[in-house]
C-alpha cells in the first residue's frame, strides 16, 4: 500500500506520529507533503491554539533546537510510543523521513498545482490528512483510493470543529471516525467508526483530545492495513446532505463541556443539536 502523508507543518506532532507509526508497522510512507512551518496562517493558528507563551517557546525550540529544554518534550504524551526513537524524539517529519527513508516536500498550499504534481509523482494509493488546508477536488482525486482523515467524533452525528466538546454537550457518545475526505465537511465515506472508551480520568478537555488523537492514529493504521488487505471498505454516509456541521466552540460552552467530562458518565441530555440539521435540514 503506497501511503502519503499531508501535514500542516514539518513540525506537526500528529503528522510525525502518523508517519512514524505507519513506518513502525511496516508501511513506510512514499512521501510527506507539508505546509511551511512559518507561514502567517500557521502561526496564527498556533497562537490561537496554544496561546502566545507556548507558541514562542515552540518557536525557540525550532530556531535553536540544541539549547531548548522543550527539545525532548512531547506536547501530546499519548504519542510517546509513536514518537520515541532510541534516546530521542521525532520533532519533525524530516527526522522521521531521515530515519525511514522517504522524501518530504513543502508547498505553500496543499491545493496548489505544485502540491498536486508532487502527489501525482508519488502516486499514492491513499494519503493521510493530518492537517492543513481545506482540500479541493484536484487534490482529493489524486490518491487512487482517496485521502483519509481521523475525525474526533462519531460521524455523521458531529461534523466540523470542536467535535469532542460538541459530543459531550450534545449527549452523543465520544468516538473517532476514520473516513475518506470529500468536498464536504466530514461528509465522506466511513472506513471505521469507534466509540471512545478512554474518557475516564481525562482532565481537562485538552487531555481528552490528546488521548483521542493517539487512538485516532492507531485507527488510521488499522484502516490502512484493512484497505491493504481488502478487509475494510468505505461506506457512504447516510445523511450526507444533512447539516450536522459544528463550529469552534465558545469558551463558555467549553466550560460546560468540561464539567460534563468531569461527571464522567456521558448520558444524553437536553440541549441536543437540532437533528434536522439546523434550518437547512
Amino acid at each position, binding site marked *: 500500500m503506497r501511503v502519503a502523508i499531508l501535514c500542516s507543518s514539518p513540525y506537526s506532532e500528529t503528522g510525525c506520529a502518523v508517519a512514524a507509526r505507519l513506518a513502525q508497522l511496516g508501511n513506510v510512507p512514499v512521501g510527506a507533503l507539508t505546509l511551511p512551518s512559518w507561514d502567517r*496562517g500557521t502561526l*496564527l*493558528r498556533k497562537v*490561537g*491554539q496554544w496561546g502566545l507563551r507556548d507558541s514562542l517557546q515552540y518557536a525557540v525550540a525550532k530556531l535553536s533546537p540544541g539549547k531548548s529544554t522543550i527539545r525532548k518534550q512531547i506536547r501530546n504524551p499519548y504519542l510517546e510510543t509513536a514518537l520515541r526513537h532510541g534516546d530521542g524524539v521525532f520533532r519533525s517529519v524530516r527526522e522521521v523521513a531521515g530515519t525511514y527513508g522517504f522524501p518530504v516536500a513543502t508547498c505553500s498550499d496543499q491545493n496548489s498545482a505544485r502540491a498536486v504534481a508532487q502527489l501525482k509523482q508519488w502516486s499514492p494509493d491513499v494519503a493521510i490528512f493530518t492537517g492543513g488546508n481545506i482540500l479541493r477536488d484536484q487534490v482529493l482525486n489524486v490518491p487512487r483510493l482517496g485521502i483519509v482523515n481521523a475525525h474526533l467524533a462519531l460521524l455523521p452525528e458531529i461534523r466540523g470543529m470542536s467535535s469532542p466538546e*460538541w459530543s459531550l*454537550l*450534545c449527549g452523543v457518545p465520544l468516538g473517532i471516525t476514520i473516513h475518506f475526505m470529500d468536498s464536504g465537511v466530514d461528509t465522506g465515506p466511513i472506513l471505521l467508526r469507534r466509540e471512545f472508551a478512554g474518557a475516564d480520568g481525562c482532565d481537562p478537555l485538552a487531555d481528552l483530545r490528546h488521548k483521542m488523537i493517539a487512538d485516532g492514529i492507531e485507527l488510521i493504521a488499522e484502516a490502512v492495513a484493512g484497505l491493504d488487505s481488502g478487509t475494510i471498505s468505505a461506506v457512504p454516509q447516510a445523511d450526507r446532505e444533512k*447539516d450536522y*456541521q*459544528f*463550529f*469552534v*466552540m*465558545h*469558551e*463558555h*460552552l*467549553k466550560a*460546560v463541556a468540561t464539567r*460534563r467530562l468531569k*461527571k*464522567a*458518565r456521558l*448520558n444524553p*441530555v*437536553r*440541549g*441536543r*443539536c*437540532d437533528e434536522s440539521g*439546523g*434550518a*437547512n435540514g
Partner: protein
Amino acid sequence: MSSPESSSSRNFMTTRTVRVLTEAAGLLRAPQRIIPLFSKLASDQLRTTFEHRHLYSYVDATIPTADALRSVVDWIFRAQRPDGGIAAYYSYLTGYSESYPEVTGYIIPTLYDFGRVTGDLTARHAAFLATDWLLSLQMTSGAFPGGLHGSDSGPGNKVQPSVFNTGQILQGLVRAHVETRNVKILKSAVAAGDWLAVIQQTDGSWTGPVAYQGTAHTYYSMVSWALAQLGAESGDARHAAAADRNIDWVLAHVQPSGWIDGINLRGHPAYLHFIAYVIQGTLECGILLRRDDAIQAAAKPAWVLLRKFETHKRLLGTYEPDFRGGQQFACLTGNAQMSCIWLRLFEVTGDLRYLNAALKMNEMLKQLLPVKGRRGVVGGVAGSYPIWGAYQPMRLISWGCKFLADALMLEGRLARKFEAELEKESEASGCA
C-alpha cells in the same frame, strides 16, 4: 427603523448631500469634537489594517457580559432627552440628535428588562418618562408620526403618520401596560393597533403614504410582532389577525435560498439591519402566533447567516438578494439583532449551535464598545465598523445599544437556563 421615515425624502441624493453638509457643519459649531473624531477614525483604521481575525476569534470571553450590559444601558440613559424621548444617535460631528419616537418606543421593553435583571430603578423610571412622552405624540387617528421629533414640524410641514413608527412604538406601549397596568397606556396601544389594522391592505401589507417611500416592506414584520403582542394583551382578535395576514404576505416573499424579498428600500442597499428586522419580526410572530411556517421561514435565513458568520468570522454590512455578497463594513446593529435571533432560535429549537454563534457575536460586539471618551461615546454601539461604513456613518446609535442590550440579557438568561437544566438532568441521571 432606524432610518427616520421622513415625508420629505423624495429626492435621496439631495437629502443625503444636505445631511452630509449639515453634519460636517456641526464640527464648525463644536470644534471640541474634532479630536475624538480623529481619534476614532485613526483607531478604526489601525484596527482594520492590523487586526486580522482568524478561526479562533471571539471564542474567549474578554469582557464580562454584565459590565458590557451596564455600559450600553448607561449610554441609553445618557441619550434620554429632557422631554423623555431618547435620541436617535450621537454623532461624532453634531452630537446628540433630537428624540426619536420610534426608537424610544421599542427601547421601553429593553429598559424594563434591564430593570428586572439588575434591580435598577433608574431603568424603570426612564421607561416611565419615555412612555409619557410617546403618549403625548399620538395622533387622533391612533397613529404615531414618522421621523425625528420636530424634524417635520416647521411651518408648512404636516406631521405624517407612519406605520413602522406606530408599530415600533406599539411594542413599547404594550410592555409599559404589562408593567404598569395603566389603562391609559392600553387605550393608546389599542388605538394604535386599530389604526394599523384598519389601514392594512387586503393582501396583508401596508403601503401608500403611511409606508416608508410609499411602498410595502417585508421588514414591517416588526409591526406584526407588535400587533401580535397587543393581541395577546388586549384579547382583541383583530390585532392578531392583522399580524397573521401580514406574515402570510411576508412568507409569500421567501426565496429557496432563505432570502426574504421585499425589503424595498429605494436608494439604499439591503443593510443587515433590515434583513434582520424581516427575520426577527417573522420569527417572533411565528412564536407568538404559534406558526411553525413562520418560524421555519425565519430559521432558514438565520442559519445561512450563522454559517457565514462562523465561516468568515463576520457578517457583511449589506447583502445582495440570495445573500450573494455585499459591502465589507460591519453593520453592528444588524449583528446584535442576529445574535437576538440566534438566541431565540436556540430557545425554540434547543440547537446549541445558535447559542454558540450568539456567544461569539456578542463577544465581538463587546470588544468594539468604546470604553473611554466623552459623554455620548462611552458604551455606544456604532452604526458601522469601521465608523465610516455606509450604515449611519460617524454615529453611535440608540437602536444599536438597544439590540446589544437585548442580546446580552438574552444570552445571560438562556445560558443560565441551559446550564441549570443540564445540571438537573445530570443529577437526575445520577451523575452528580
